[in-house]
């Protein structure tokens, strides 16, 4: 465990409380300063460095993780407000085995990154987006006359729109779309 956890250990006080998070299937009970966001707890206390801090203001998507199955910006989530939630980070996608998740494999096969900083967020966001489309969630580019409640087919325009909350400063967008297309086909 790193030093940050030691800094944040100690009893609950007016400004610190206990919270239990299930992260990648493992429960963690932590006493956290109320100010701490999930992203910092993942990186500093749990040694999970997949989720990245880009802007720290919900504008870049590099910190995207799945909370109770939904993609969220972990930089804007107070850890204390997530008591009892199930968090999945990029480290949790491959399960216990060594095999990569098919979307991780697709990112490698398609060379869908250069520096890789945004990649964990892109992958978690794409998984959330695919689940949303299957559940019938429309997007800004979905035809308004499409039947509501039906799964939305993801063409390239849909993928681009749904991933607009994830910036890639290397500009790997076309290949990111290729990789996502590979796993939905």
């Amino acid at each position, binding site marked *: 465990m790193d030093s940050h956890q030691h800094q944040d250990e100690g009893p609950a006080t*007016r*400004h610190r*409380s206990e919270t239990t998070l299930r992260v990648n299937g493992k429960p963690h009970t932590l006493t956290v*300063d*109320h*100010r701490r*966001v999930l992203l910092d707890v993942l990186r500093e206390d749990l040694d999970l460095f997949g989720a990245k801090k880009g802007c*720290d*203001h*919900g504008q870049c*998507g590099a910190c*995207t993780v799945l909370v109770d199955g*939904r*993609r*969220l*910006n972990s930089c*804007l*989530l*107070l850890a*204390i*407000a997530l*008591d009892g939630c199930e968090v999945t980070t990029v480290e949790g996608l491959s399960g216990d085995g060594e095999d990569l998740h098919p979307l991780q494999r697709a990112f490698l096969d398609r060379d869908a990154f250069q520096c890789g900083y945004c990649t964990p967020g892109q992958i978690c*966001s794409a998984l*959330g*987006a695919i689940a*949303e489309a299957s*559940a*019938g*969630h*429309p*997007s*800004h580019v*979905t035809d*308004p006359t499409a039947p*509501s*409640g039906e799964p939305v087919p993801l063409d390239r325009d849909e993928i*681009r*729109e*749904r*991933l*607009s*909350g*994830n910036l890639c400063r290397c500009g790997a967008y076309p290949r990111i779309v290729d990789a996502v297309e590979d796993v939905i086909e």
Partner: protein
Amino acid sequence: MKTFDYVRADSLEEAADAFAARPGARYLGGGTNLVDLMKLGVERPAALVDISRLPLDTVEELPDGSLRIGATVRNSDLAAHRAVRDRWPALSQAVLAGASGQLRNAATTGGNLLQRTRCPYFQDVAKPCNKREPGSGCGARDGVHRDHAVLGHSAHCVATHPSDMAVALAALDARVELYGADGARSLPAAEFHRLPGDRPEVDTEIRPGEIITGVVLPAATAGVPSAYRKARDRASYAFALASVAVAVGVDDGVVTSARIAFGALAHRPWRARRAEEVLLGAAPTEAAFEHAVDLELSAAEPLRDNAYKVPLARGLALDVLARLTAAART
């Protein structure tokens, strides 16, 4: 960030009591705006009363044909709801035109209405801003104000309200339901937000300690053809430069109902009452639409660098009016 007390409320009563007992408290919903403002030092709450888990997360179809959307329903669920998409499509479209997939998964219906302006002077504690610090002046009026108001602004504030959702709610005659120490009440969505006047620090008509419990879409606008259109600097994930929500009914060659609200032009969603009045009973022609929209926008008082908003908003409104009435005009 300043330290704060945290309490999670399980009921409305508990939330209101916890808030009243803690001076300087703020309610926490999805946190997408509040937590960000706390990081910026704009918000410095002494306590957060977490209302994100109150049992207000359902969408109910009421017997009279209206639809009640609970305050903690997430923006993405609201936009995907079948009744909303089928009967009040402008609302679904407006929500989907805002923010990103991640943010819409976190942001709540109530929180969306209570989000603060994205004026850069408001968000920077080193700059003057009457909304953040009454009396400190308005940096935007003679500064960087390309994104700012062209209607209803004052010497004290030229900020716009950033919500897309609120624009559709204003056009669709929705009501905002509130709970507070004096019990429950409701307000028209179009009157929920204020113009800045000499008190720009007050964004809405909500009273201290009150909680938004939901919004109700009325039966009167159910099924009326409606749409939302937004212009912005990039194709996705940007705040509006101008936007419009329109619901318009045509029967037997005349306009039988007209509801129009502009976004990003003012401190609140701008309900275009003058345009609506002249459209009622008129034939749905291009000339009638132009006359109505021009009449409304003749009240505009652009700042040095944002006069472009007037023709932009005009074009959006004319396009949506023409599109919604196309079938009735052929």
